[in-house]
């Protein structure tokens, strides 16, 4: 009997095996951490930013998350690269709007990536003021914000 062909999107498969822009960036202009307190999932995003144009010239990211987070991280990083900080922020806000209607686990996977980006923006602004802190943003659309957690700590 002829075996059915599996319905796995080849692009999805490729991103799971080789997620775009994945890795650590040793020298960066901004770094942000997104966390999901419910699941322990984390995403760290590193940005290289052109100071004049405010464009994101390079991006790297890492996660300990699930397949959906991995694919979201890869796709979002492709979106962010080349955008200005402002348009990156607008894109992220649009993501927050959109994922509110998604089922909670999938929404959380996309949100944790977007939260990491927002944390990186805060880090960049803090660096411009000469502050050195670690910025963490928590998933809130699908999980409660942990009590007493600040979004920045001195590093």
């Amino acid at each position, binding site marked *: *009997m002829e*075996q*059915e*062909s*599996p*319905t*796995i999107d*080849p692009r999805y*498969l490729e991103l*799971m*095996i080789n*997620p775009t822009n*994945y*890795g*650590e960036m040793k020298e960066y202009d901004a770094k942000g*951490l997104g966390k999901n307190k419910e699941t*322990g999932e*984390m995403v*760290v995003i590193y940005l290289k930013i052109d100071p004049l144009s405010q464009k994101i010239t390079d991006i790297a990211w*890492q*996660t*300990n998350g*699930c*397949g959906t987070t*991995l694919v979201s991280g890869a796709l979002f990083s492709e979106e962010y690269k080349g955008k200005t900080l402002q348009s990156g922020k607008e894109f992220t806000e649009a993501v927050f709007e959109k994922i509110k209607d998604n089922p909670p686990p999938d929404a959380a996977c996309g949100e944790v990536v977007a939260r990491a980006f927002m944390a990186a923006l805060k880090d960049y602004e803090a660096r411009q003021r000469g502050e050195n802190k670690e910025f963490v943003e928590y998933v809130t659309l699908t999980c409660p914000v942990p009590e007493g957690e600040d979004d920045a700590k001195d590093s």
Partner: protein
Amino acid sequence: MQKILEAKHTLWLEILFGAFTLPCEQKEQLLDFAMIEYRHLKWIAKEIVKNGQDFDWSREEPNTQFADTKKLLEYLVNKLARMSYPKGPLFDRIRSDEEYMRFRLQRLAKEPSQPINAFSKELRYGGLEAKSIQALVQFLFEEIYKEYELILVYTYAQLHTKEAQLGLIFEDLIYESLYHLKSFATLAAKLGILFVPREVMKEVYKFDDLSAFLQEGIEEEMAAKEQCRALSATIEDEELRRFFDFIDKQESYHIELMKEALEVTKR
């Protein structure tokens, strides 16, 4: 030493994941060598900690995708020849181990070559239907990474604890994950979706709170048990069904070990 550790980390993964692409007898030989390489990795990391420094699990990009077994084995022979270590008892041992590995791999490379299908993305497994394959692929992608992550997390934790009982529990958890990684990667190779797991972020293993890590880990293991039970119920293949039942039962004791570690950290 960090640079040597990174090169050793890469070599360990190249031999380990290379093994999963080989036919049975050659695979067993490479798996043994991979275990030796893992021990080297741990010993080098231990030396770094002993010298009052810290290390991280950075690595180079492992090279594992070859068209046939001969090309893979020749690559490993050359790679072993390029490894360079300083003087000292640990590195004398490593040099001697790798000299023997090179000798054995050179012999294996002379055996008839076979094509490697572990990366073909064929997504076929016996008579398994599409829905089961999809569930299996999703599980393997997440769990292969997770087992690799756990090996690195527990090795790092073991090298940083002074508590003997915790050290023994971490050792058991590492053995568990090494076995699971081997089992899942073997399945992935059969499906044609073998891959080397992505790098583990520092924030995962350089944590402030071991208790919180263990607590989260217990919850993750419970979720993994659920996944195993779901796969066992979904997949219409006797061998795979029995395998996932077996892994599910293993996870139960795995959780007990983690609870025991949690108790030790609370003392």
